[in-house]
């Protein structure tokens, strides 16, 4: 959608916004060194690079430290219930598919309480971008295990260490049918910005698993931990990112290494493409003051 000209704005030449123009009157309340800062900065810069105006964007937030970002980025925002950002975003996008819709939530939000919505939103291929702030811990509730926490990870709710295997959000997105699946690292904002930009430009559902160190409650998955383990899939020779089994295999074979970059991308018809009733204009643009239902009433005779 972002690639299409928006009629509300005169032209790209007049565009003179800076990342700072996406700041609100509130300053972030995240811990010093929190990975959210990197994501916050990358996103604002991306908006500027794409020439988007604040009112052309709707960000739907979940609950968690990332969700508090609703107060710190100047766009239309809906700060939804825990785990429910995806369905709210879906409804808003279907009501007005001209909006650029972005979803921000944590790992608990996305694969814990909202896991069902995650699977189904992936398979719908609605043209939205979902940024999962994955810090592998429940931060806002002061440090409990998350569905993405590593096995053995000791937290307030798992003092003896986590017994379950972690969910891999990238793998889950791949098998659930997302058409753009990437992983980024909050510590390399330049790269993150590139993949966010491509995600927003992608026509279909785009998902980015963002490795985001929690400096307060996760002393295990730190900046250094990730710097040592990540490698960029762009550096691989002969990697075909439009092949689903190759993408799944790469995600599975990681042993001590974590791939970042665009892991999978294909072009498929979007959910909106299948809706003839929004072909001409968005639902919100219809005049509803005098809907003639005579034809419908006649069906009951």
């Amino acid at each position, binding site marked *: 959608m972002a690639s299409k000209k928006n009629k509300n704005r005169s032209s790209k030449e007049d565009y003179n916004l800076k990342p700072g123009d996406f700041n609100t009157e509130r300053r972030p309340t995240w811990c010093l060194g929190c990975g959210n800062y990197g994501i916050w900065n990358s996103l604002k810069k991306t908006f500027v690079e794409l020439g988007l105006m604040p009112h052309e964007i709707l960000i739907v937030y979940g609950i968690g430290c990332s969700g508090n970002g609703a*107060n710190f980025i100047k766009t239309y925002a809906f700060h939804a219930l825990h785990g429910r950002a995806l*369905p709210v975003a879906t409804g*808003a996008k279907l*009501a007005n598919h001209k909006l650029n819709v972005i979803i921000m939530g944590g790992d608990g939000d996305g694969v814990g309480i909202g896991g069902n919505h995650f699977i189904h939103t992936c398979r719908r291929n609605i043209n939205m971008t979902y940024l999962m702030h994955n810090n592998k811990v429940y931060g806002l509730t002061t440090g409990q295990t998350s569905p993405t926490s590593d096995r053995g990870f000791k937290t307030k709710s798992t003092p003896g260490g986590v017994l379950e295997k972690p969910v891999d959000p990238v793998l889950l997105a791949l098998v659930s049918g997302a058409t753009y699946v990437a992983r980024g690292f909050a510590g390399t904002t330049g790269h993150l910005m590139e993949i966010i930009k491509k995600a927003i430009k992608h026509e279909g559902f785009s998902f980015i698993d963002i490795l985001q160190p929690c400096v307060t409650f996760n002393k295990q998955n730190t900046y250094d931990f990730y710097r040592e383990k990540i490698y960029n899939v762009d550096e691989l020779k002969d990697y075909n990112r439009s092949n689903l089994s190759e993408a799944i295999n790469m995600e599975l074979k990681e042993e001590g290494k974590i791939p970042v970059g665009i892991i999978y991308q294909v072009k498929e018809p979007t959910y909106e493409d299948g809706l003839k009733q929004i072909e001409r204009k968005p639902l919100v643009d219809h005049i509803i003051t005098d809907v003639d239902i005579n034809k419908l009433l006649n069906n009951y*005779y």
Partner: protein
Amino acid sequence: MKVSNLTWKIGGEAGYGIMSTGVIFSRIFTKKGYFVIDSNEYPSLIRGGHNTYTVRVSSNQIFSIDKDINILVALNQETLTLHQEEATYGGYIIYDEDVCDIKDIKRARKDINYIMVPFSKIISELGAPKVMINNISLGASVALLNYDMEILKNVIKDNFSRKGTEIVDLNIRSSELGYKYVKQKIKTASYELEIVNPVGKMLLTGNDAVFLGAVRAGCKFYAAYPMTPSSSILHSFASAEGDYNIVTKHAEDEIAVINMAIGASFAGARSMVATSGGGFSLMNEGLSSAAITETPIVVVLCQRPAPATGLPTWTEQGDMLFAVHASHGEFLRVVIAPGDPEECFYLTGKAFNLADKYQIPVIIMLDKYLSESHFSYEKFDFKKIAVDRGKLLTAVKNKSGEYKRYSDTEDGISPRVIVGIENGIHIANSDEHNEKGYSEEDAYNRKIMVDKRFRKIKKLIEEIPPPKIYGPADAEITIWSWGSCKGPILEAMSILNQKEKKVNLVHFTFLYPFDYESIAGVIEESNKNVVVENNKTSQLSKLIMMNTGHKIKNKILKYSGRQFLSGEIISGIEKIE
């Protein structure tokens, strides 16, 4: 025999088209202007259970079905066993001797006429599938009533036209064979209905009427997860989405359903969801999200007997106090309970206006009986549903800073915007927030915002009509009830008020909120009060007690999973001293 009123019932195994046969029988009468009410009974499975369909036809206005059956069509032995007692004196039973053994019944019920129609033989000679036996029974019934066979053929044609001419022809031919068989066998008609003004009527369910009201009100987004008895609303929306530019979404669960609708409504489209009690339970957290973000939403709650899965295909009014208090936290909502499809239609229109104007959730309560039973009506005057979106802005001039979405206005209603317009940027925040939508935990702000949201009630209450009073003002006994009990009660009153006992009805279509001062007077004036409800714990009397301090001692309650029949209300009233 000329009659002004008759009841027909068909019973058979699930999977044999009992439901569509029932609707066809109803429709052949509404086509000619008769008044019709029907009701179906079926178990929660696809094949093998026992299904029945009861149709009451009248030359005059009626309000509910009747328990006395004039014509019983038995497609299996179970129908005879379970329902022969309901056959009225001098009534008729149509059966097939190859399927039903009637020896014992004949001995017990000598007052009934037995019409043997060899359904199985006729259908196998015709070479039609067994599922078409019900058409033979329709033809046989029409012959027995000396009714119009052409109308039956037209309705069958309309009903099956989607399946192609071959299927239509086979259905019609089987009905004709049933008609001919009975015509040859019977010289005089069993009953002949008095002629009415032959202007066709609509035949529709409460769910149909909610759907129609919503489309008229400009509902653009409908989401649901299938759940009996709400599912037909989903099917109606899905079939109309192309013609009326509506997006219908069958989502992954009811949590997604309500949140999608909230998202669509937030963006600016009128949005509705429907479910039954279990789905409504899942929607509860969503209701409070709509409440604090002040996002309009219409939720249709088609009740069925619970707890848990309960009786999925039966009826009850067990969720009223749940709806009135649903979800965490204190917030304003409106709960509406239409009594019949006509009220379903107009009140759904009103529900959208109330949701938009006050930016609150509005819950419309039906139950299986109202959701799935058909009622006849003259055409609804859809122009009577006017659209009022309240303070919804499509443009904002003020360019100074961010938009005050939750401005602390005098009436508590803060103008909202269509998302995407310039200068309207704000946060719709599930956290408590300040006027601009920023999260705010300040004590003073919290009080301001809670008061702002509740202040809307002042204006809202003026739009809520008091309960409607039916029957004589000087009644000896006053019935208090709500929702779908209206029909059986009115039916009972029409009989009771011919006798000495004078009875009237205070019927609630708006359960919450309303001006309870207005009914406190009525309670005191009435000689004897009695509550009639389709539940165990008499939730309406609790609601009245909570809000007026008045206790209504007399109660007529039914919680067997079946709706009231007028006779049960009459005998309940007669016991009151």
